[in-house]
């Protein structure tokens, strides 16, 4: 019964939504804010990766929100899965090959993550991607080594400090510039590592924060009840 109703309703919904898109041409250039960004962002922000420029500069506030959402998820998860009793992961030790291999790969992954977020303004990727990569690296260690422990203290320090750095950069813009999150550093030459003003700084903060948060999140999930 529920199936029939659901299919019927979804049919109606899908039909109308699809009907909306039937007349929308695919792959056509529109005259919109995106064009403005493509044309002016390099001068305005110094970043050659326009997506990064938008994410960190033009829509930096969104990114702040995004970081907040992740932080929120980690906090919420911690609150929901909180348990007074001491917690232990219940994973088995992996085989020796996996162990050794992951020990070898682990620093490389971390390095890759760092590379991705440091070069956010130049190449695809940025803080989120880098942070996620770092978290997967830690996850690898979690899986391979039963006793692998992250330093919680350090994690939460990193988490908080990185978040505060982001906000502080924003407030610095308010103090020394004209508005929140405004770029207060020289833009430098596009396409070099030390360019794009505060973008790399923000992305580094975001990278650390996301990495720490996702790690904490995984740790929390792995360790809970049962």
């Amino acid at each position, binding site marked *: 019964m529920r199936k029939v109703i659901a299919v019927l309703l979804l049919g109606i919904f899908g039909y109308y939504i699809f009907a*909306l898109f039937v007349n929308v041409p695919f792959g056509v250039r529109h005259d919109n804010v995106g064009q403005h*960004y493509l044309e002016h962002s390099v001068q305005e922000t110094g970043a050659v990766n326009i997506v990064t420029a938008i994410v960190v500069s033009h829509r930096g506030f969104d990114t702040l929100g995004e970081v907040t959402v992740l932080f929120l998820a980690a906090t919420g998860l911690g609150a*929901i899965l909180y348990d007074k009793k001491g917690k232990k992961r219940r994973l088995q030790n992996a085989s020796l090959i996996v162990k050794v291999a992951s020990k070898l790969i682990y620093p490389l992954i971390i390095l890759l993550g760092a590379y991705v977020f440091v070069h956010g303004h130049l190449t695809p990727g940025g803080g989120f991607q880098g942070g996620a990569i770092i978290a997967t690296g830690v996850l690898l260690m979690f899986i391979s080594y039963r006793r692998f422990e992250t330093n919680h203290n350090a994690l939460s320090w990193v988490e908080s400090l990185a978040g505060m750095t982001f*906000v502080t950069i924003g407030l610095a813009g308010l103090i020394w510039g004209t508005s929140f999150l405004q770029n207060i550093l020289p833009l430098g030459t596009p396409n070099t590592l030390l360019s794009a003003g505060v973008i790399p700084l923000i992305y580094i903060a975001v990278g650390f924060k996301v990495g720490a948060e996702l790690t904490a999140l995984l740790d929390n999930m792995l360790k809970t009840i049962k």
Partner: protein
Amino acid sequence: MSLSPVQFIAVPLFAAFLIPLIGKASKETVKLVPGIVLLYLSYVALNLFPRGLERPIVEHIAGFNPPFGITLYYGPLAAFLTTLVTLIGFVIWLYSYKFIIREPFEKYYMLFMLLITGSTGIILTGDIFNMFVFLEITAIAAYSLTAFLRDKDGAEAAFKYLLIGSFSSTFVLLAILLIYMQTGTLNLADIALKMADVPITMKIFILILFITGLGIEAEIFPLNGWAPDAYSQAPSPVGAVFGGIVVKATIYALMRIVYLMFNFHSVLHFFVIMGVITMLIAEMSAMRQHQIKRMLAFSSIGQMGLVIIAFGLGTEPGVRAALFQMFNHALIKTLLFFSAGYLVFHSGSKHISALDGLGRDKPLTSFFFAFGALAIIGLPPFAGFWSKLYILLSVADAHLVTVVVLILISAVIEIVYYLRVVSRLYFKRETATDVRRTPLSGLAAMGILAVVILFVGLYPNTILDWLTPAARELMNTSEYIRTGLHLNSGLLSINF
């Protein structure tokens, strides 16, 4: 540092990041942080308020001119709502101070701060995608807070909330996508400007998606299934957060979007109809509830129905009445949740039938509940009276006498279920009394609210004088577009 509206968002956020660090040093200090932050925010609010009334402050985040950057729009309406959120937030903190003593309370305060960030963000932002982000922040914080007690019912309520909340975000996202596709911009003012060229089909579907998406959090029937569960199973201050902050911010978002982008009159009448249905069904359901907080939740939905009716009139008195009702409802429902929280705590049961005779035992808490009940019914000399009166008058001005009658019928139903509880409170009971006392911080929070409610009831002009420009702002779309787009006021906010 000069004052700027962005602090409403940045400062609580900063505090949320700071809390875990402070928690390492001393757990008790953590409890103070939100209070300090909210006090600071009220200072900011009081300072910015006159400026916002005089001339909207448009803050350009990162210094990019609209529509290429995100802007914050601090006009009379935003000034009013941020002040409201700050005030409610402060009393909720005061109340939580002794109420939330369960571990991990520092997480509670973090979530609470983030929720404040989210809702002020919704209110202030002038960018539609940014609004979505803040909606999500608010929603996720709300899910987590609902399940904060980690009990069976809390998790269930939170899951339902999340399930429907995800639908909400999907629809909002789809609507944003359609808007971007059609207008090529995300700035609210710019969208409003370019919306005229959008084909009507598209417009209506965008509107439908927005109504559905935001209507979920604004508790429009039949999208409000999550609300009674979430309100009743969350810790009491969180119920107050929902009724006082989250819903208000979402309704604001919905109405801002509707008024700004869609100017059909028939659409507004649709809101009147939806409001009436929401109100009636909620009040009728509230009457048959056995749990006090569930009853409050349904009553909250009913009141939101009233707000939606008033917004749907599309007249300036209507909007003003709706804003007034939002203000009063935020205060009163918070007071009710606070007192109900301690009543539940003292009686040890969520059920109404367990409340017999608590009026004798816990005179002050019961007094505040009775006070809130009388106020929310809309009896003078409390604040609720004026807003209900204004809503009725604006509805009658729009020649909708049937709606007037329906509102009054629902008010009668409201009387029945509220006073049933009140008279139960003053009933005799033979069982042993609860020796625990209601803590001073809780009573202080309720006391502040009660004083404000009474004050506004006796001097409604204090609020109404603020509301008139706020209502005008919502109605006057062209002014919003003008200030939102063309004033180069990245400098404005700082050079005062």
